[in-house]
């Protein structure tokens, strides 16, 4: 009877069984420090370099362009602050990003603004997309870096990355993309798309939390975020999280092996859920319906507040979210929904459902059985609804 549906895969994902099995030997058997000379050290070094090759292959990069980090946030901070500080030496102190980036980017920008950098925050249109023309128009002589996320973490909209890459290349500006939500879900080729730096995080595709990577195109110089030992070819110190890195590579390989198949299945589920939920009166879908991640549904239901919707779903065994997980301590409505032009009172009533590999059509059925009733009930007790 009591069902349990995890539908918040944009927040984090469970570690898959194959990933866990791949990791375990590195805790108790090949536990050596990969920098060590002796057998248990070498036994850890090789898989580390294989993991690097795997990740590089999945992104269309070279192995020596992949640097393992502690997650998406570190990668974002390193990319943005690194390039900014490097190019500031040449007088380039302007940064372009968008209004609906992840806080790892936005708060890094704020930190850089305090240091004297200037940041242009591009508008995001109501379809949840930035406009390449507007980006191009914002590029200046002193622009050091453009950072536009590959896919948004709340509304799942996929940005015109190749076009942005081309424009940045044309103007000689470094292009970073936060691809934390996209990696494993869409086809990425950093060379073809002219991406100079790309952030990713393992726990979004069934690898563990606390491990990520930054792709840095060969030739891009920037200071380290974490100085110390000679790990990661002297660019990111700290004894390598071998188990996590191996887990990340196994998970990524798995995810990239069947992107198309999975997308087809998830898009069917996604679209059915959206179609049905749009039948509820005064409901809205947020962001472009087509240019979005296969597993992302983000809707607003007028007259309802997000948290009470989530708690009600939780009581029925459904895990979903409203806004992003890392801001759920805050009372402000999602900056993403405000950026695409939703009024505050509607932005408060948003619901994000994100499916992964592990979800099924039965999950959609169950959500459709439960969610409309919850909305009716919450509206019946909402003083905003009658009006």
């Amino acid at each position, binding site marked *: 009877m009591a069902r349990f549906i995890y539908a918040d895969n944009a927040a984090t994902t469970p570690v898959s069984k194959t990933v866990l099995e791949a990791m375990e030997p590195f805790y108790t058997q090949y536990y050596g420090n990969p920098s060590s000379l002796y057998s248990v050290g070498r036994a850890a070094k090789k898989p580390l370099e294989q993991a690097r090759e795997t990740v590089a292959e999945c992104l269309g990069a070279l192995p020596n362009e992949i640097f393992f980090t502690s997650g998406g946030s570190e990668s974002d901070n390193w990319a943005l602050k690194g390039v900014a500080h490097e190019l500031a030496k040449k007088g380039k102190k302007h940064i372009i990003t968008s209004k609906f980036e992840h806080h790892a980017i936005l708060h890094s920008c704020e930190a850089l603004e305090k240091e004297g950098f200037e940041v242009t925050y591009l508008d995001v249109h109501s379809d949840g997309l930035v406009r390449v023309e507007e980006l191009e128009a914002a590029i200046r002589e002193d622009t050091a870096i453009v950072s536009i996320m590959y896919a948004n973490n709340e509304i799942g909209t996929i940005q015109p990355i190749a076009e942005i890459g081309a424009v940045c290349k044309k103007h000689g500006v470094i292009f970073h993309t936060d691809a934390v939500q996209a990696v494993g879900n869409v086809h990425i080729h950093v060379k073809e798309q002219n991406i100079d730096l790309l952030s990713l995080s393992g726990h979004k595709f069934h690898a563990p939390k606390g491990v990520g990577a930054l792709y840095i195109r060969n030739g891009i110089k920037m200071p380290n975020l974490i100085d110390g030992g000679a790990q990661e070819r002297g660019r990111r110190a700290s004894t390598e999280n071998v188990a996590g890195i191996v887990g990340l590579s196994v998970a990524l390989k798995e995810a990239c092996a069947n992107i198309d198949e999975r997308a087809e299945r998830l898009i069917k589920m996604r679209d059915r859920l959206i179609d049905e939920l749009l039948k509820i009166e005064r409901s809205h879908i947020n962001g472009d319906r087509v240019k979005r991640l296969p597993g992302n549904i983000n809707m607003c239901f007028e007259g309802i*507040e997000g*948290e009470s919707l989530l*708690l009600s779903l939780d009581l029925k065994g459904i895990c979903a979210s409203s806004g992003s997980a890392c801001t759920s*301590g*805050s*009372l402000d409505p999602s900056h993403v929904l405000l950026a695409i032009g939703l009024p505050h*009172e509607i932005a408060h009533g948003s619901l994000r459902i994100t499916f992964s590999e592990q979800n099924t059509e039965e999950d959609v059925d169950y959500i459709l059985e439960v969610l409309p009733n919850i909305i009716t009930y919450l509206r019946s*007790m909402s003083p905003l*609804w009658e009006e």
Partner: protein
Amino acid sequence: MAYSEKVMDHFANPRNVGEIPDASGVGEVGNPKCGDIMRMYIKVDGDVITDVKFKTFGCGAAIATSSMATELIKGKKIEDALKLTNKAVMEALDGLPPVKVHCSVLAEQAIKAAVSDYYKKMGIDPSPLVGEIPECESCACDLH
């Protein structure tokens, strides 16, 4: 956001939800822009609140505090209802997470607003009895 069992109980099974068509007083506080609005209806007989109902648009804590507040004042004298503090509501719910304290403040204010409305309808100046009800006092949101 860890809610106590009491909060979850009052969220899942809120008491006294609804409206009172011939209410003696109605009070509404909060601001939809901020994601919270609480409306409280009271029925008064003599100096006793004989019935109370609420409607709330807001988070889990807002719904639970509305529910608990109505339970705490139902059948009470008006003067006692006015003494109900947000702290008492929170204690009755076994506590709230720090960021949710203002939701309980809304509940306290909603009662005061309803009583004010009742006094006004009776032709009595509520200010000396109820005190000022500040606009969105101790609201945590930064929209001001």
